[in-house]
């Protein structure tokens, strides 16, 4: 397993490397970088000067090395619209996205686990069926549709919540719910199934046979073992959640990195887009790695295998 963790870590590093290279060469595919990096309508002489100053007349490989160097020194150039360092733009936006993530993750886990548990214990009756139908609809509803329906109800009809922006914690509530919905549905489904698997095991019958009260049987023996597959699904969901944050932020005009990346793609602001893609890939890859390590820490069998 330690071996596997090492392989995962290497894989993560390789993935990041491929993303960094792909992003650079993809933007170079679309034509001469000078056309989009320099403001339109400047005279030829200035243009030539700036091209050589920015190193755009150098061979592609040199440009790539320069770009790599910039990545490590934190100099990723200026955004084409905001005309200030890309890093500064992202530094301003990142806290909003992380806040949104924290809210959504808390919501999905805090609601998903109890609901999954309830669905497993109420298997076969209407309550359990209701939870599972809710989970299915949550899974099938596209997040922008859910977002629009929620805006319509809570902002325009009930006037409870603001429809867009990211000024106060209240602004994050609706985006967090929309972001959490599919993950919540997955957690409910998986924790229910995991728990049902565990509930059929012999050691639970043993626990009951030796006279343990039911809350200890479920709380101590079943939940711990059911937690393992749920952690795995958390890891798989992180990539999906980061993908969705792009859409959710642009619906709610949350000033985060997802919103920024969408507008940079629409406006072909390549320096901003490049760094955004790399940053998001970094977030995804590191969070799945964290889950891998958490998994190894949770599952006692893994420790046995390692020693």
């Amino acid at each position, binding site marked *: 397993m330690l071996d596997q963790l090492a392989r995962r870590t290497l*894989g993560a590093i390789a993935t990041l490397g491929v993303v960094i290279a792909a992003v650079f060469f*993809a933007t170079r595919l679309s034509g001469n970088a000078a056309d989009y990096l320099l403001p339109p309508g400047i005279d030829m002489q200035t243009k030539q000067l700036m091209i050589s100053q920015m190193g755009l007349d150098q061979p592609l490989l040199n440009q790539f090395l320069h770009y790599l160097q910039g990545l490590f020194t934190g100099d990723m150039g200026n955004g084409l619209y905001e005309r200030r360092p890309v890093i500064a733009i992202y530094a301003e936006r990142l806290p909003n996205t992380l806040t949104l993530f924290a809210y959504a993750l808390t919501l999905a886990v805090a609601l998903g686990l109890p609901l999954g548990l309830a669905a497993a214990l109420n298997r076969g009756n209407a309550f359990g069926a209701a939870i599972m139908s809710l989970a299915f609809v949550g899974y099938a509803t596209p997040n922008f549709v859910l977002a*629009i329906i929620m805006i*319509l109800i809570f902002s325009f009809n009930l006037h409870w919540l603001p429809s867009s922006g990211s000024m106060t914690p209240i602004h994050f509530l609706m985006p967090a719910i929309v972001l959490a919905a599919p993950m919540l549905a997955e957690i409910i489904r998986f924790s229910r199934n995991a728990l049902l698997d565990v509930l059929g095991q012999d050691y639970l019958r043993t626990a009951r046979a030796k006279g343990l009260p039911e809350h200890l049987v479920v709380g101590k023996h079943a939940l711990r073992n059911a937690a393992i597959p749920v952690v795995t699904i958390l890891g798989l969901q992180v990539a999906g959640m980061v*993908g969705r944050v*792009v859409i959710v932020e642009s619906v709610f005009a949350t000033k985060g990195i997802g919103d920024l990346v969408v507008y940079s*793609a629409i406006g072909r602001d390549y320096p901003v*887009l490049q760094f955004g893609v790399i940053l998001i890939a970094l977030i*995804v890859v590191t969070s799945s790695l964290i889950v891998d390590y958490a998994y190894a820490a949770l599952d006692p069998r893994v420790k046995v295998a390692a020693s």
Partner: protein
Amino acid sequence: MTELTVAFAPPRASTHKGKPNLFKTLWSRANLFTRANLCLFALVLIVAALAQWIAPFDPDAQKLLARLKPPVGFGGANPTYLLGTDQLGRDMLSRSLHGLRLTLAIALIGSMISLVLGTTLGIIAGYARGWFGGVIMAVVDIQLAIPFTLIALVVIAVFGNSLPVLIVTIGLAGWEVYARVVRAQVLAVSRMPFVEAAVAAGAPHGRILVKHILPNIASPIIVVWTMTFSALILAESSLSFLGLGVQPPTATLGSMVGLGRDYLASSPWIALVPACAIMFVSLQVLLIGDWLRDALDIRLK
């Protein structure tokens, strides 16, 4: 040697015999709800295919005198426009039908691209193995690690947004799922006695692949297809919603929701009609995928 060849003559793959009854078998494993859903989905497909003839109006024709009419049943509705009109006086029903057709067409062509690409690469990785197979699986792992939205954003930013780019982008979503499943299936099937027998009998690779391996991995491919199809519909809708899909005035359901967003407070139906259509279709496809997986008894992963 000839005797051996005869002795180990590969048994016909079982799916050949069962093929005419396959649909019947599947139908018999469907409950009433699933059957109703299947009929309804067939209806959706027919309606979408015939959009051009069914739609009461030209989807792009603007009537400025009949702007922002609500659907029938709400105050101020005009019965000519069953689902109301948008901010330019275009008939919502006609636009939704055409949008539905385009959405389904993009998802269909896109899913075919990812099916062919993923299956081919999966077969290469599983059958030929070697370093090339390793490279394919490494790319699969990388794509699995990166949210699809990001890949789509980069592709569309670089190549511009047009229908062909959108279709290819959608085709890039999901191939990795086919590649993984197909590779695993091919690895499993290649170890089956009948494949070993075919190899021993001296059958060429092409024949082994087409006659012995493909029929045996067809069911998982179909299941992956139905299970990714709704994801593709959602991917297309999300991109169109963000304004990265087809160019106006042509609309898919997603771009209609995106444009209707600006009129949400005053005329919510402009966004809600296509939004409900997306949700309805994706729910249907998901249910069909679930049923097929259970009916064909396929366990993925």
